[in-house]
C-alpha cells in the first residue's frame, strides 16, 4: 500500500524549475504533490501524480534524468501533535525517515497527507497500522 513517486534532476540555475514544470504542463501531467530538495549545484524535484508510468515516459522522452520509488502517503489529522505521533511510531519501530512533505486532499476538504520516504516501507506500514494510523493508496489520492 504505497504511492509511486517520481524524482527529477534539475540543475540549480535560474529558470530550470520553470522549464521543467512548463514541460509537465505541456504533457498534460497534473501534479498532486511535490517537494524540492536543493544543493548548491542541483535540485531534486519529487512529484506525485496520476498515471505515473505516462509521466515517467514523457520525462524520459524530454531528456530528463528520472528516478522512481515507492513512498507512503499517510493521512494526518488537522490538530496539534498528529505529526509527532506518526514520527514517534516510526522512530519506536526503528524506521529511518529520509524526508517527508505534506499536501492537502482535493477529494475531502480538510484532509491532509504526509508523504514519507522511509528505509523500509513494509515495516513502516505495519507499525503505522498497528497504531491506528491510515495510509492512502495511489488511486484514492485522485
Amino acid at each position: 500500500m504505497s504511492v509511486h513517486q517520481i524524482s527529477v534532476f534539475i540543475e540549480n540555475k535560474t529558470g530550470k524549475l520553470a522549464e521543467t514544470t512548463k514541460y509537465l504542463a505541456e504533457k498534460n501531467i497534473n501534479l498532486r504533490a511535490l517537494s524540492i530538495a536543493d544543493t548548491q549545484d542541483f535540485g531534486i524535484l519529487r512529484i506525485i501524480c496520476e498515471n505515473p508510468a505516462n509521466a515517467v515516459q514523457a520525462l524520459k522522452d524530454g531528456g530528463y534524468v528520472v528516478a522512481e520509488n515507492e513512498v507512503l502517503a499517510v493521512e494526518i489529522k488537522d490538530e496539534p501533535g498528529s505529526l509527532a505521533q506518526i514520527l514517534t511510531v516510526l522512530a519506536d519501530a526503528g524506521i529511518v525517515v529520509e524526508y517527508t512533505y505534506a499536501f492537502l486532499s482535493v477529494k475531502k476538504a480538510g484532509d491532509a497527507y504526509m508523504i514519507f520516504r522511509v528505509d523500509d516501507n513494509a515495516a513502516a506500514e505495519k507499525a503505522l497500522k498497528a497504531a491506528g494510523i491510515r495510509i492512502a493508496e495511489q488511486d484514492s489520492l485522485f
Partner: protein
Amino acid sequence: MPNYYQPEIECASREEIRAIQDEKLVKQVKHVYENVKYYRDLMDEKGVKPEDIQSVDDLHKLPFLTKADLRDAYPYGLLACDLKDCVRIQSTSGTTGRRVVAFYTQKDVDLWEDCCARAIVAAGGTNEDVCQVAYGYGLFTGGPGLNGGSHKVGCLTLPMSSGNTERQIQFMRDLHATILCCTPSYAAYIGETIKEMGLTPDDIDLKAGIFGAEPWTEEMRRDIEKSLGIKAYDIYGLTETSGPGVSFECCEQGGMHINEDHFIAEIIDPDTGEVLPEGEKGELVFTSIDKEAFPLLRYRTRDICVLSHKKCSCGRTLVRMSKPMGRSDDMLIIRGVNVFPSQIETVLLKEGYSPNYQIEVDRVNNTDTLDINVELSPEQFSDTVKDVAAKEKALAAAITQMLGIRPAVHLVAPKSITRSEGKAVRVIDKRKLHD
C-alpha cells in the same frame, strides 16, 4: 656584482659552448644507443647509427621522443644505466596513464642542483641569503631541485614545502628569508595573505623570488613584485629533463637562459617535425647531453616558444627562450600540476559516468580554479540528496586521486554541455596565461 655561479660556462664564447655540445652529444648518443633498447630500436627504424651523429648539426637526424614513448617505456624502458647506480626518482603528478618517472644517478642530481644554483645566483643569491623553498617536496621536482640548488649556493635553506601560509610568513619574518622559491600563484597568494595580516613588504626581508612550474604573465609578475617588494625571476624545467633549472631568468628579465652545457634546445614545427630557423615560434625540443640515468634525446616538450641568441646585457652567452606561449597538445597546467583532459575522462568511465564533461579553468585571486561539469546518467540519480551528493563527492575524490589536485565537481543535466559542430567543448580556459 657579477651574479654568476659558473661563469666559465654561463659566459663562455659561443664557440666554446658549441664545442662542449658537440663532444657531449656524440658521447651521449653512443651511451643511449648502447644502453637503451627502446631508443636504439627507434634509431634503427630510422636508419640512424651513432656514427652518423658527429656534431650538433646532425641532431636533426635523430628520432623524437614524446610523452607517449615515456608511457610505453614505463618504468624502466628508457633507463640508460644500472639501477644500482641510480640514487633518486622524481615523478610528475598523474597517478596512472600519464605518469613520468625519471631516474637520477648521483651525478645527475649534482648537475641538476648546479642548474638550480645558477638560477639562484642569477637572482642575486649568495651564501649570505636565507632561501625559503615553498615548492612542494616529494615526487614533484620543484622542492628537491631548488633545495639542492640553495645548498650549493650555501644559502641557509628553509625547506618549507607548500601550504600552511601563515606559518610560511612567520618563518619568513622570524628567520629573515631573502629569497622565495615557489609557484607564481603561490607567491601571489603569500603576498595577499601578508596584506590581509596587516603587514607590508617592509615587514619582510625578501629581495628576490624564483617562480616557475606554471605559466604566468608580466602583469602577474608586477603584482607579485609589488606585493612582496621583490624582483621576480622565472625558472623553467620539466621532470623529463631533470626538473626546474633547464633555463632561468637573469636580472634583465628578458627570457630564460638555457643551460646549454647540459641541454641542447631546438625549435620545431609541431606538425611536420622540421627544425625551424632561429627566431621562429615553434615547439621546444630538448636533448639531455649530460644525464646518465634518464637521457632523453630530442624530447618534445609541447611548449611553444621562441629562442634568441641575441647578446644579453647580463653577460651570459647562453641562448634565451621566451616564456612558453602555449602548448601543441591539450595539456593544462593547473596550480603547477600537469593535467590532461583524458585523465578526467578515464576516471569518469571507470566510475560509471558518461564521458560527457566540461573542464572550466580560471584564475581567481591569482589561484587556479578547476571546475568539472559532468553529465548525470540515470544510474547515478536517486530521490535523495544524500545519495547524489555522495556520488558527486566520490567522483571528486577519484579525480583528485588521479590528478593530484582537487576539482569542484558539478553534476549537470544530460546533453546540457555545450557542443559545437557536434563535438563537445571539453576545456574552457578563462585564464590569461600569456602576454
